[in-house]
């Protein structure tokens, strides 16, 4: 179960964390004991035991209805955008050279 540096690098990528080498080492060192601890679950017999359900199905579903927000909320959300133009969210390009 021990994680090696490649695993940590891959996990950092999947987690969208641009970790430095030093931070990778720190994660490697601290995540392993935790995985060891939770590994005790493998010793519990769970034959024929179902997984816990979050909520019953009726509560899990609702009508797909839009609830209008107030103007204050609308303006507040836009004011929080890290970058914006004409009331719209501006995001970095997905591709380096987007098609014009």
């Amino acid at each position, binding site marked *: 179960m021990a994680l090696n540096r490649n695993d940590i690098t891959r996990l950092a990528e999947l987690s969208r964390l641009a970790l430095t080498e030093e931070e990778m080492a720190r994660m490697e060192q*601290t995540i392993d004991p935790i995985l060891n*601890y939770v590994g005790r679950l493998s010793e519990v017999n769970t034959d024929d035991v*179902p997984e816990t359900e979050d909520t019953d199905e009726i509560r899990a579903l609702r009508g797909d209805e839009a609830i209008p927000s*107030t103007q204050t909320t609308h303006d507040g959300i836009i004011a929080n955008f890290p970058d914006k133009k004409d009331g719209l969210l501006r995001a970095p*390009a997905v591709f380096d050279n987007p098609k014009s």
Partner: protein
Amino acid sequence: MYELMTLKQAADALANKTVTSVELTQSYLDRIRAKDGDIHAYLEVFEAHALEQAKASDARRAAGSALSEIDGIPLAIKDNMLIEGEHVTGGSKILDGYVAPYDATVTQKLKDAGAIFLGRVNMDEFAMGGSTERSAYGITRNPVDLERVPGGSSGGSAAAVAGDLCIAALGSDTGGSIRQPAAFTGIVGLKPSYGTVSRYGLMAMASSLDQIGPMTKTVEDAALLYQIIRGEDYHDQTTVNTPPFHFEKRTDLKGIRVGIPKQAWGEGMTDGVRQECGKALETLKELGAEMVEIDLPYMDEALAVYYVLMPCEVSANISRFDGIRYGQRAQGLPLIETYGQSRLQGLGEEVRRRVMLGTYALSRGYYDAYYRKARKVQTLIRRAYNKAFEGVDVIVTPTTPSPAFKIGEKINDPLAMYLEDVYTVGVNVAGIPAVSVPCGKTNGLPVGLQFIGGMFKDDQLLSIASAFESAP
């Protein structure tokens, strides 16, 4: 100066017009100014706004139209609940500068009841931590001993109540974040039944476990505040319409069966905690309770289940903090690097660790061994509690294995910090309610006794806890 008032006393004083909300609020603002430099419970004090609200409250009372019993009562709010128009950070750098665009359901309910918000209080980043040392905005100190932590993650709420820097506060509890700081600072903290308090407008940590609850000076105060914040909410589909809440202040426990799980009272706690909690059991007996030794298996496994399910949900919930729609964004980079750099710069070490743990446990090839397995053991834990409650009304354990530890003592050993949660996490995994009540001191440090109740029996739980609190 109005000092050390309980919510009930303050509500009565306001009703009898022996104090005004402005006087009360001003007195708390003055005390915050005098004392909070040392404690650092508050991240921001809403001074002008609080006084404005207090004036409005006094006007309502003078006109005979008080909104509720708590109209005019000054409260502190954990920094992960939204108050429209106010800054809110979740203790994280990534939300530095963020302004809440709407009210959380709990803050809306408190506003509707006329409560005053003194300010927002400190917490471990996104509620991940047990000491409030993981806030991006500095540590909070325990008012009982400034060299020690107040617990966490609701450490600011606990320190504000214990330091008498507010009448009462709201906290949130995913694995013990209300009860453990309550125990460490000598106050009352209630983690309500899952589904009784809406989390709309609460920053999500682990959604299947998170609950908001009151942190107060007495059990009666917890009942008062809980009654106001509870209830079904269209915006949180996990909320349910529960039976009416009937809190009864009790002075005896005749006819009450108290379960003592042998697993919780074995090894693992300090001598001081054992001694104080042992005395508390004697008190329960003297109050007339029938003490029943019970078998409650899977205590260590509950901690393991928690440290699988929680990081899995954390990894999903924290994915929204990517620098795109809100919070801090690393500028001038292509999209994928914007995510990685914004999250690196904005999220602290403990949050990153849990995100990575959860990502690991949910990744292909490991899902069955971790997440699915934990969900199965969770079923066993729920069954164990159900079985235990067939024979008893309430279960009693220490809240924590040891009293408040020194600042810096556990910060470099995440697993040691996690093991502190051994008595509290099972309750979240099972969804049931629990309250920590002060039960004496060891070497001057408060010890907490945890009462665990049956699902949706929050009123019965608090009624029983009130009898313990009233004992001489």
